[in-house]
């Protein structure tokens, strides 16, 4: 697991562009080590971080990295509230606070299982990074991305071999990406599933893999204040009872370790 430098540090926005419903941010992170797929960062704008709706944001926000090396890190974010809104309006050259890379990323499939990467919405970025790493390591991942509509699916256009599902059917399969996964597992269950996305999708995939005894690694999202184990806010219930902290014990956790993926 790549360790994060202690303390928040300043990054600079190198570029920002909108691809359909998402904003792709490229951040110059001079002091930063290279992140591993599935790790995340806590981000905040240096100036104007507050005074949005309800005087928010105040706490930093968590974002999986979509790629990162040689002092550059990429993020893909959707503007859904005051924090993502402020970040989406960052100008080239503006400074931002970074802590990371944080958490445990994905682990290679065991006993030769083929990797299936099933993501939804802003769950796509870590899977993009993981698929590249898998290819570099000689694996041939199957990618399945689910989106609400064409605007959200636009970001996946640049991938040639990806199965797309959209809720409104405007692109690819008209339905949930979990249906694509079911078909894929039906075809060949000797796989390891890697998933990231909204809680409803993760919970469905957790159950599906449990029933079919298919190993699955879920990259979870949870309300976070710190991202490095200090607040005990980001918990997920464990199948063995009690809670784990998504930020330090995850965000990638074995599906079998989790009692259920909380949706709130």
């Amino acid at each position, binding site marked *: 697991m790549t360790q994060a*430098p*202690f*303390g928040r540090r300043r990054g600079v926005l190198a570029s920002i562009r909108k691809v359909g419903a998402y904003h792709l941010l490229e951040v110059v992170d001079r002091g930063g080590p290279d992140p591993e797929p599935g790790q995340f960062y806590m981000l905040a704008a240096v100036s104007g971080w507050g005074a949005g709706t309800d005087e928010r944001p*105040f706490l930093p926000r968590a974002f999986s990295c979509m790629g990162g090396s040689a002092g550059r890190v990429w993020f893909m974010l959707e503007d859904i509230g005051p924090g993502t809104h402020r970040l989406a309006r960052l100008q080239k050259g503006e400074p931002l606070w970074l802590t990371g890379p944080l958490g445990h990323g994905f682990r290679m499939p065991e006993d030769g299982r083929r990797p299936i990467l099933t993501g939804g919405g802003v769950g796509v970025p870590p899977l993009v990074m993981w698929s590249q790493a898998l290819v570099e390591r000689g694996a041939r991942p199957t990618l399945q991305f689910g989106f609400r509509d064409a605007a959200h699916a636009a970001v996946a256009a640049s991938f040639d071999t990806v199965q797309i599902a959209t809720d409104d059917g405007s692109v690819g399969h008209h339905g949930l990406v979990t249906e694509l996964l079911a078909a894929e597992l039906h075809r060949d269950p000797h796989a390891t599933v890697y998933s990231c996305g909204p809680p409803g999708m993760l919970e469905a995939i957790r159950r599906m893999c449990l029933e079919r005894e298919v190993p699955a690694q879920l990259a979870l999202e949870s309300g976070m204040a710190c991202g*490095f184990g*200090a607040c005990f806010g980001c*918990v997920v219930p464990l199948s063995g009872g*009690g809670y784990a902290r998504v930020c330090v014990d995850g965000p990638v956790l074995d599906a079998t370790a989790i009692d259920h993926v909380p949706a709130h």
Partner: protein
Amino acid sequence: MSAVDFCGIELAHPIVNGSGTFDAIAAHAVFGDALLEDFPFSAFVSKTITLAVRDGNPPPRLWETPSGMINSIGLPNKGLAGYLEHDLPKLAALPVPLITNVMGSTAGELCELVAACDGQEAIRAIELNVSCPNVKTGLDIGADPASLAEVMRAVRPQTAKPLIVKLTPNTADVALVAAAAEAEGADAVSLINTLRATAQHPDGSGRPWLGGVTGGMSGPAIRAVALAQVTAVAARVSIPVVGMGGVQRGEHAAQLLRAGATLVAVGTESFRDSAAGSRIARELDRLEAR
């Protein structure tokens, strides 16, 4: 940095962490030895330890507010035995003195906790978290001078180590409660803990967002309330005061020290910047150098 004597313990500077807002063991795993080389606090205060193991409240446990946050964590911890076995050895290896924070819903529970801490050489001081409800009165023990005095009478004899009473701000007259703690032998008081607060689910149903229904507010939003309470308590008692509540930079720490605090704790700001403690200590040092 100006060294500080706190209840006989020599500290490199006045900035410590607020209990429950920094996990030195987890942070060491995340950040590595850099954490120890530039440890952000002059003493480390553990998360509140209870007799029994506690899972803590169901999620969600956090809500962001204007210039602050609410937490309803529910004091998850390994319990006294688990703490002594798993955490203490690692915390004892930290480069700064260790203060252990404990909570019990009855005087008996607190006595057992304090007695156990008394027996541990590595624990230099004990902080009593009295913001938990008194089963009989329904009020927080720390909200009512009489119930605090009763608990202190039972607990004080359990240890000769410095005993810090952490006061709740959710009371009519915090200085009155502080005076009761002093009268019953407290070596120091620390305040403020979080302000009782709640949040509704954004779906408009009116149901609570937090698993624990209500929680405690912290961060810059409570700073002016903390300064008033620390000022009132420091004027009333002669034992040292640890002041906290929304401290973000050296100037805020300096204000609490001017109000009469001996130490200043940093909590929520560490979530925004894991190295906030050392930054604030440096800023304070520059201010005092002037």
